[in-house]
C-alpha cells in the first residue's frame, strides 16, 4: 500500500485548565488525505478544529502525535501549505494586487516582475476582482476581501490548502456566490483542500469527504463521510441529487444526536460511511430508507 499524501497520527492537544489540571481538547486524531481531495471538517464549536488546522499549517504545535506530508514531517509553516484565515489577514497597507504579488514573489523568488504580476492578475481575475487591483483592503467589502485572500492562497499553488471557516463572516448571499467561485477554481486546479466549516450544505457542495468531530473535551474525528455526488457540482442543482439529501440527513443527525457519544474505529481512524451509497450503487435499490442507510453506514 502506498503512503497517503497527508498522514496525521495520534494528534492531541492539551492545555492547562487553569485550575492546576490538564484539559485535553482533542486526542488521538488520525486521518489521511489523498492528493486532490477536498475534505471538510465539521464539529461543534470548541472541539478543536482550528487547532488541528493550525497544527497542519505549522502555526501551532500539537501536544503529541505527528503530521507527515509527502513523506516529510510537518514542522513549522511552509509554502507548500497555503492558509486562508477566517479574518482574511490581508496586509492593509498593500493594494489588492500587491497582496497577491507579495505571496507569489515569496513562492517564486526568481520570477521576473512581469511574470509575477501576470500570474497574480490571473488569479485575481479568477475570483472576479480584476477591476479592483489598486484598491486597499479597507476599500473592499468583506466578500471581496475573502476573495482576495482565496486568490492569494491559490496563487501560490500549495500542495495543501487549509481554509478555516473562510465564509464564516459573510452574509448568506455573498457566501453562495463565493462558494460557487471556490467550486470553479477547485475544478480548475484540483488542489488538495482541508477546510473547516459549520455549514452542512457548504460541506456537501464542496467536499469529497466530510470529517465529523465529536464534542470536546477529548474530541475525536469519529467519522469520515463520503459525499458521492459527481463533479462538477453547482449550488443551484446539487439538491436535485438524491444523494445530497441522504448525506445531509446523515450529517445533521450526527451533529444533533450523536456528536456527544460518537467514537472512531478501535484503531483510532475515523469510521468510513457512505450515506448515499443506496442511490449511487445500482446493487441496493433507491427504496432503502434513511434509517437503514444510516445503520448500514455505521456498521460499515
Amino acid at each position, binding site marked *: 500500500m502506498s503512503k497517503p499524501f497527508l498522514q496525521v497520527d495520534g494528534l492531541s492537544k492539551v492545555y492547562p485548565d487553569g485550575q492546576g489540571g490538564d484539559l485535553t481538547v482533542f486526542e488521538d486524531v488520525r486521518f489521511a488525505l489523498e492528493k486532490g481531495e477536498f475534505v471538510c471538517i465539521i464539529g461543534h464549536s470548541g472541539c478543536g478544529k482550528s487547532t488541528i488546522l493550525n497544527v497542519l*499549517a*505549522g*502555526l501551532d504545535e500539537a501536544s503529541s502525535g505527528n503530521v507527515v506530508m509527502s513523506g516529510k514531517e510537518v514542522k*513549522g*509553516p*511552509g*509554502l507548500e*501549505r*497555503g*492558509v486562508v*484565515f477566517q*479574518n482574511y*489577514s490581508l*496586509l*492593509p*497597507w498593500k493594494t489588492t494586487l500587491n497582496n497577491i504579488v*507579495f*505571496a507569489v514573489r*515569496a*513562492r517564486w523568488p526568481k520570477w521576473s516582475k512581469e511574470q509575477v504580476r501576470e500570474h497574480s492578475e490571473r488569479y485575481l481575475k479568477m475570483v472576479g476582482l480584476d477591476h479592483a487591483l489598486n484598491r*486597499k*483592503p*479597507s476599500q473592499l467589502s468583506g466578500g471581496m476581501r475573502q476573495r482576495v485572500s482565496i486568490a492569494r492562497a491559490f496563487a*501560490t499553488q500549495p500542495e495543501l490548502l487549509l481554509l478555516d471557516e473562510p465564509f464564516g463572516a459573510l452574509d448568506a448571499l455573498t457566501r453562495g456566490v463565493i462558494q460557487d467561485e471556490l467550486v470553479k477554481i477547485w475544478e480548475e486546479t484540483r488542489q488538495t483542500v482541508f477546510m473547516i466549516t459549520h455549514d452542512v450544505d457548504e460541506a456537501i457542495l464542496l467536499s469529497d469527504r466530510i470529517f465529523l468531530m465529536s464534542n470536546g473535551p477529548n474530541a475525536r474525528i469519529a467519522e469520515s463521510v463520503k459525499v458521492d455526488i459527481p463533479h462538477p457540482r453547482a449550488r443551484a442543482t446539487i439538491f436535485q441529487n438524491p444523494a445530497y439529501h441522504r448525506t445531509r440527513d446523515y450529517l445533521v443527525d450526527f451533529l444533533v444526536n450523536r456528536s456527544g457519544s460518537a467514537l472512531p474505529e478501535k484503531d483510532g481512524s475515523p469510521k468510513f460511511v457512505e450515506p448515499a451509497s443506496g442511490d449511487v450503487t445500482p446493487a441496493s435499490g433507491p427504496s432503502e430508507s434513511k434509517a437503514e442507510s444510516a445503520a448500514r453506514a455505521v456498521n460499515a
Partner: protein
Amino acid sequence: MASLNVRAALLSVSFLILFLGCWEMATQPPEAQTGMTEYELLMGGADQESRVPPPSAVIKLAWAELSDPFYDAGANDKGIGIQLGYSVYRVLTGFLAAMAVALPIGFLIGMSPLMYKALNPYIQVLRPISPLAWMPLALFIIQDSDASAIFVIFICSIWPMLLNTAFGVANVRQDWVNVARTHELGPLRTAVTVILPAAAPTILTGMRISIGIAWLVIVAAEMLVGGTGIGYYVWNEWNNLDLASVIFSILMIGFVGMLLDLALGRAQKLVEYKE
C-alpha cells in the same frame, strides 16, 4: 455663508490685530511727565530701554533680519538664518543618530520579550533624566561643545522613538505575522516587509514626539554651550538688552518648530493605513 475655513481665517486675523493693537497700546512710551525726578532726567528722560518693545518695532526688526538672513559679520553678529541653520543641523544630526539606535533596539525589544524584560529597567531609569543633566558629563567626555549639544539632542529624542517602536512592533497583529510565516519569509524579510509597515504609524508618532522634544531642548542646550545657534542668539540678545530681537527670535523658534512637526506629520500620513 462663507465656509468654515474662511470664517476661521477671518477670526484668526481679527484676534491677531486685536492682540497686536493691545500690545502696541500697552507699550507706548509715557508722555513726558512734568514731575520727573532728577535721577530720571539724568538717565535721559523716559526709561525706553527697560520697556517691552511695541510690535511695530519687532516687525521692523523682523523685516530687516529676514531680508538678509544669512549675513555673517563675526562671532556675535550672524543672520537669523545662519543661527537657525545651526540649530536645525544639530537637531537633525542628533535626531538621525537617535533613530539609528532607537529603531533597531526598539525592534529587538518589541520582538523579544526577553530583551524587553532585560532592558526595560535601564530605559525606565534613563528616560526621566532631563537631557540637560547630561550636559556636564558630555562636555567632559566629548570635550567639544557642538558635539555635546548634539549628544543632548540624541539622548532626548531616543526615548519616544524607542518606546513607540517597541510598542508598535510588539503589537503587530499576529495574523499578519502568521501570513509572513506561512509564506516562509526569513526574520529580516518579515521585519522589513510586514512588521515595519505594520508598526510604521506608531513609530512615526514616536518620531514626531521626539523631534518636538529635540527642538525644545536645543534652545536650552545652546543657551548653555553658547557659540552659535538660535538658543545662543536669544541669550546673546538678552545680554544686549535687545528685546525686539529676543521677541523676534522667539517667534522664529516657534515657526521652525512648526515646520519640523509639519514635515513629520506629512511622513506620518504616508505610512498610515486603514484596517
